[in-house]
């Protein structure tokens, strides 16, 4: 396809306004044209995204953040299942050959996780740009690996962290007031006991 025609279609695509026929033409051009204007596509995609900046800003209610956190907490099983599903086809058959390794379940689990994590990390490690900026991130691959490997722990940790950062001060004050109330009750109990004894003694005399 001619470059100019491709750019004309790109202009419509970034505004999400391509008809079916044009969408197919552009799709085909992306697939087969070696000189497809990818750079221009990127420029127009950025331009379309800039349009939002011209709008007057609005803010959602602050409680929405907690709602989002709750939604993420509720999907912990889904993420775990997703990671498990990814792991299954990666299990190396070699491990099954050695009976000793089968007995050591923890070890096998650890081994089978490794290829999956490599797969997940690979798109990150090819990024030259990010590699330059955050070499320590990439060199901490093993740290990231352990995070994903023990995803159950990670989910729990994530939730704990969230609760810690959002509810810890409140919990602290509740704990303190409980302690205070306990001491006051003890004192009151002791006073009541003394009064009963005094009344009893007075009654006897």
């Amino acid at each position, binding site marked *: 396809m001619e470059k100019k025609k491709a750019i004309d279609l790109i202009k419509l695509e970034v505004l999400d306004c391509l008809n079916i026929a044009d969408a197919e033409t552009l799709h085909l051009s992306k697939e087969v044209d070696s000189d497809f204007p990818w750079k221009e596509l990127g420029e127009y995609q950025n331009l379309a995204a800039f349009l939002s*900046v011209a*709008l007057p800003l*609005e803010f959602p209610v602050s409680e929405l953040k907690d*709602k989002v956190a709750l939604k993420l907490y509720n999907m912990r099983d889904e*993420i775990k299942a997703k990671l498990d599903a990814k792991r299954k086809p990666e299990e190396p058959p070699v491990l099954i050959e050695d009976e000793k390794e089968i007995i050591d379940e923890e070890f096998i689990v650890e081994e089978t996780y490794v290829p999956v994590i490599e797969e997940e990390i690979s798109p990150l490690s090819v990024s030259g740009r990010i590699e330059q*900026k955050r070499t320590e*991130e990439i060199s901490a691959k093993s740290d*990231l690996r352990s995070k994903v490997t023990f995803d159950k722990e990670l989910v729990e940790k994530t939730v704990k962290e969230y609760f810690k950062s959002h509810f810890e001060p409140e919990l602290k004050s509740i704990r303190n007031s409980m302690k205070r109330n306990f001491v006051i009750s003890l004192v009151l109990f002791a006073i009541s006991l003394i009064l009963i004894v005094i009344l009893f003694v007075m009654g006897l005399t």
Partner: protein
Amino acid sequence: MSEVKSLTDAEIMLKIAGYDSKALEQLYDRYTPLLYTLIKKIIPEKETAEEVLSEVFVIIWRQIDHFDFSSSNVYTWMVTLARNKAIDAKNRTIGKVTEEYTDDYENEKILPKLSPEIESVELEEVLGMKEKIEGAMKSLTDAQKYVIELSYFEGLDESGIAEKLKIPSSTVKSKLQVAIGNLMKKISKTN
């Protein structure tokens, strides 16, 4: 939290790829005003707009492996994702979209497909260009602004705009192409 505050958007995405909840919280704090503004423009109803915004962050958490770390264009990925999700929610409300919302549907229709050669932009950088972008928008004619509004913010397709403005589809196409082309010229010139 203060540790992630100093990170770039791309670095934050990298941390989210390791399921770092604090990084996601930081991304939420940074992008929420802009994304909520965009979603609210598309869906004026407050509760639905908030629901869509929360769904956007759920998608980011679930589909972080679909983010292209080689180009690392967080800004355009986030904005396009929010826009796609909001338009989809709007079209479902009015019955324009009835297709079941599955993972495949989400991958195909909601997750952005950015050019592999796209230049990386970050929120702070774009906010710094706010005046330039507003100026470029102001330079467009009312008709040009209106067709962009109808397509990008109202999600109308070519035939929808043609029907609304009572003009041929070919005219809609050329108006949109001229409008976005002029906008590009203005912004490139000021840059």
